[in-house]
């Protein structure tokens, strides 16, 4: 559900990213087949990769755990997401792994970083755009 919400939000800024020549890339923890299904269902048109051993998530020091997934803050965000019409479908990937957003490149430039502290703790995309277009 939160991945759907995040993907939908990212598609909302993709036009601005395209105009600025910035590529939108997503990494998921599920299977390649799950990624394809997710892209089709969400009309996600960025590049999509999978990282089932979570090595990239670990390298970027992203959160993972029970409380981050099912703690009070996550549950509140879950209710808010459901009120906006997002629903949980069949899951594919690591249940406990949290996400994040980074603006990075070219080369060794790490311009923006946001690590979700809990499920649904998504980055402010206005801040992402500001970092990108800066």
């Amino acid at each position: 559900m939160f991945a759907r919400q995040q993907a939908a939000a990212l598609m909302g800024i993709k036009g601005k990213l395209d105009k600025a020549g910035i590529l939108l890339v997503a990494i998921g923890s599920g299977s390649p087949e799950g990624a394809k299904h997710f892209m089709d269902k969400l009309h996600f048109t960025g590049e999509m990769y999978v990282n089932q051993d979570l090595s990239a998530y670990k390298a970027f020091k992203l959160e993972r755990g029970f409380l981050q997934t099912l703690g009070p803050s996550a549950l509140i965000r879950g209710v808010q997401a459901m009120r906006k019409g997002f629903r949980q479908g069949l899951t594919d990937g690591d249940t406990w792994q949290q996400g994040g957003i980074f603006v990075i490149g070219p080369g060794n430039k790490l311009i923006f970083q946001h690590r979700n502290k809990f499920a649904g703790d998504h980055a402010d995309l206005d801040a992402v755009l500001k970092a990108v277009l800066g």
Partner: protein
Amino acid sequence: MTYDELRPRIKSITIQPFQGKEVKLESLWNDRRIVLAFLRHFG
């Protein structure tokens, strides 16, 4: 986290496109700026 801290952590990591061969993670932004979104599980 600075890029200098990140670099050794990502050096050997590859990721898989939803179709096609694995690519080095760092190659995604070698010559371009990207917005990189790590998603929770699909679904």
